[in-house]
Structures are given as structure tokens and as C-alpha cells.
């Protein structure tokens, strides 16, 4: 357990010391929130959807978590090529402990990032209706943080170098974000698109957070939690397995 803790702490320290990284990864959510939130706001209201910022904010919070989490996981590639991973792999601790420490560290960083985006949303005009449900939103935020860090870990364990970086960005991270309910309501979309969105784990995370803040669940609290909890466990196992197979 000490090994898990010290590797978790390492991620937190690295994050808190890198001001450029913190500000840089806040830029994108902020851009989406302001441009889309105010740009589509009037259209959304005219179509009877209400205040778009209220709808969008949980999506943008999830986006901040998604991006940070996947990249925290993928950091394994850096560590692998530039050495530090070796130091942990020859230490007398199990691979499971290493992967748990790393994943929980990455997920914590992503969660912090999500909370910061949440406060930015408040400044921009987001209001939530049920204060008491904030802890539930936090749980959902943490679940997607762990889930996507685990996906990043799985990818990072398989890829040898950063050449595939653009590939991951354009074919995994961006689709996960766009083909979800983060930016628009699912009701009334073409069936194939709806189907795709229902397969996307992020959808359940966004729905959980949106519901917890009092904007109504699409699937319900129980379903969101069950789907997300199960998927997180499965992906954590997959990530750990792929990580355990790394040879140098």
C-alpha cells in the first residue's frame, strides 16, 4: 500500500508543479464553454431547450476530466522511453500496485481539473439546483476520471512511442467527447448516432453529473452508476493486465 501511495503522490506533485500544464489544459474546456455556450445559447433557447449553459456545463466538466485522464494514463509512454518506468518495474512491488498508484494519481489529477472547470462554469453562469447532490456529482466525476485514466494506461502500455499520439487524439479522445451527450441532447437524433452515443461510457458520466446537479437524468441514477461502475472495474482490469505484460 505504501508503494501505491508514493506513486499516487508522485503524480500529484508533478501536476501541482506544472503551472503550464494546469493552465494549458483549462484552455480547451474554457474555449468550448464560452464559444459554444454563448454561441449556441440563443438557438438552443429558441428551440425550447432552455438555458444552454445549464445544459452544457456538466458536459464541459466531463471534457476537462476526459482529456486530463487519458493523458495522465498515456504518460506511461514518456516514462517508459525516458526511464522512470524502469525504476518502478525493477522494484520489489507488484505491477498491480504500480498500476493502481499511477491510475489513482492520474484520476485524482483529472478530478481536480474537473472541479476547477466546475468553478469556472459557476463564474460563467452555471447554477445547480440541488446542493446536496454535489457529492454524487463528485462520485461520477471520479468514476469517469478512473475509467479514462485506465483507458490511457491500457493504450500507453501497448504503444511503443508517441508517434501514435495524433491517432489517439483524433480516433479515440475526440470521438469519445463528440459522440456523447456532452454538447447536445440525445433525444431526436438519428438512430445510428443515438446507438453510438449509448455505447459511449462518457455519456453515462455526463448524464450522472447532469442529473446530480438537478438537470434531469436520461437513464436514471442507478443505471448510470451501474454502467459506469462496471465499465470502470473492467477497464481497470484491462489496463492492469496490459501494463503487467510490459517488457523493456
Amino acid at each position, binding site marked *: 500500500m*505504501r*508503494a501505491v*501511495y*508514493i*506513486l499516487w503522490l*508522485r503524480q500529484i*506533485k*508533478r501536476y501541482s*508543479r*506544472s503551472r503550464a500544464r494546469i493552465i494549458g489544459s483549462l484552455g480547451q474546456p474554457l474555449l468550448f464553454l464560452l464559444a459554444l455556450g454563448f454561441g449556441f445559447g440563443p438557438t438552443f433557447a429558441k428551440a425550447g431547450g432552455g438555458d444552454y449553459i445549464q445544459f452544457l456545463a456538466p458536459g464541459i466538466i466531463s471534457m476537462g476530466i476526459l482529456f486530463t485522464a487519458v493523458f495522465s494514463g498515456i504518460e506511461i509512454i514518456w516514462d517508459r*522511453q*525516458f*526511464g*522512470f518506468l*524502469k*525504476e*518502478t*518495474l*525493477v*522494484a*520489489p*512491488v507488484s505491477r498491480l500496485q504500480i498500476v493502481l498508484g499511477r491510475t489513482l494519481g492520474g484520476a485524482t489529477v483529472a478530478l481536480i481539473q474537473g472541479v476547477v472547470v466546475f468553478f469556472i462554469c459557476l463564474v460563467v453562469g452555471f447554477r445547480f439546483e440541488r446542493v446536496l447532490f454535489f457529492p454524487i456529482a463528485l462520485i461520477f466525476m471520479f468514476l469517469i476520471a478512473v475509467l479514462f485514466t485506465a483507458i490511457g494506461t491500457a493504450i500507453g502500455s501497448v504503444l*511503443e*512511442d*508517441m*508517434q501514435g499520439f495524433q491517432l489517439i487524439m483524433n480516433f479515440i479522445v475526440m470521438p469519445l467527447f463528440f459522440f456523447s451527450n456532452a454538447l447536445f441532447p440525445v433525444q431526436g437524433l438519428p438512430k445510428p448516432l443515438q446507438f453510438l452515443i449509448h455505447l459511449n461510457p462518457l455519456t453515462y458520466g455526463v448524464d450522472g453529473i447532469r442529473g446530480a446537479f438537478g438537470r434531469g437524468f436520461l437513464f436514471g441514477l442507478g443505471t448510470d452508476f451501474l454502467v459506469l461502475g462496471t465499465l470502470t472495474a473492467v477497464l481497470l482490469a484491462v489496463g492492469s493486465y496490459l501494463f503487467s505484460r510490459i*517488457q*523493456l
Partner: protein
Amino acid sequence: MTAMIDVHDLVKNFGSFCAVDHVSFAVPEGQIFGFLGPNGAGKTTTIKMLTTVLIPTSGAIRVNGHDPQREQHQVRRSFGIVFQDPSLDSELTGWENMELHGVLYGVPSAERREKIESLLKFVELWDRRDDFVKQYSGGMKRRLEVARALLHKPKILFLDEPTIGLDPQTRNHIWTFIKSLSKEQKVTVFFTTHYMEEAERVADEVAIIDHGKIVAQDTPIALKEKTQAKTLEDAFIALTGHTLRDEEASSSEQMRIMRRVWRGR
């Protein structure tokens, strides 16, 4: 004398390429053993198998009496290693890198603090302990890695080209330290290097590996006599020939170059 490292008929194939080809050798306790060979001869591959991070195709290995595949943790506790590439976290301080290592190896906290202090003082990094490793020079990083490798009191120290790219002062400092270590604490040292004069000066015994096979193994003096060479370097060339070796640039080699360009080592 018992063998600290015992390798028998070790083979590693990568696809159809045989990187390590039926290699056998033994390193007695307390010895300084030089593992020499041209680029791509199989040195690093052998070290990886000895240190549990690469699974051999066939053959038997005993490190401190344990099998690196089946008794990973016993083997891992037995050795400290300085890798060919830097393996420090440059976003952490020197102290934090040591601390992290100590916790991973389960060194109790009081002992850890004492040991870190004495080791950092020994490699003359105590005054810089709270600086980030990214601010260290190449030589300081290496010294920190050597100190770190010794924190959990290993019986064996693996050094994979520990002095590459360092100035003569630092090289001298590191080797003097390692020699005294082996003498005073009976630590077994297994190292690779391209600097033959270093191997000649430091090693009790050397093995020369080429194309995955050991072509000679003896004391530096005996090797020189056998090949009628004046220096170990001449003996080395007599044994391995004049052909230049072109290691295929792997992706990790490319990233290594990229890193050197961007960060400076």
C-alpha cells in the same frame, strides 16, 4: 566462493534475430565484472534478463541464488541498477527521488532518512537535495542514480554504461566510489562500458560478447597476454574485429536522441 550471478546457456531471440546466443558465465561474490562488447552485441539484453524485466527464450539464470522469472521479488531486492538511460523523475527533487526509491523498496523511514543523507553526502549532492533533478548536470544525475541504486543495500550493483557522456573527473569519481564499495561492503558489481581503459583499471574479470556470443572471458591481464596486445582496447579489437556495428535505430533510440536534443543530458 559462491556465484552471485550464475548464467547457464542463456538465449534470447527477437523474432528470427538471436540477440543472446547460448551465453554462460558466473560472477563470484564481491567481484567487479566487466561485460564488454560492441554496439548491439547483447549486453543490455542480458542485463534486462538478469534484472527481471525481460523474459529469456531459454536458459537458466540465478541471481543471488534466485530465478529472475519465478522469484522476481527476491531477485529485485538483491540488486541495485543504474540504467543506460537516465531513469530519474526530473520533475522531482533529488531527495524525493531517493525517498520514492526507499519507499518502493520498503526501507523503514528512520533508516531511510539516515541512509539517504549519508549517500547524498557521499556523492556530494547533499547541498543540492532540494533542487529539481531537471536542474542537475549529466554527472550529477548519474551520481544520484548510483546513490539511489545503493539505498536498499543491494548485494549486486548493475551498471549499464554508467560513465557514458561524463567528464573525466566525474568518471574517476564514480569508479573510485565503486571500487571502494566493492572492497568495503563486498558488493558484487556487474558493469558494461565502451571505455576499455576503465574496464582495464577497474574490473577483476571481463567477458567479451560479440554477436550474442561470449568470445573471451578472463582477467584483463590474461586477455592482453593471450592476444599479445598492449592494452585491453587492442585485445578487444583483436577479438571482435574492425567492422563497425550499426545498431538498427529503434523507436526508443530515436526518442533517446530526441530527448538529448530537447533536454540536454
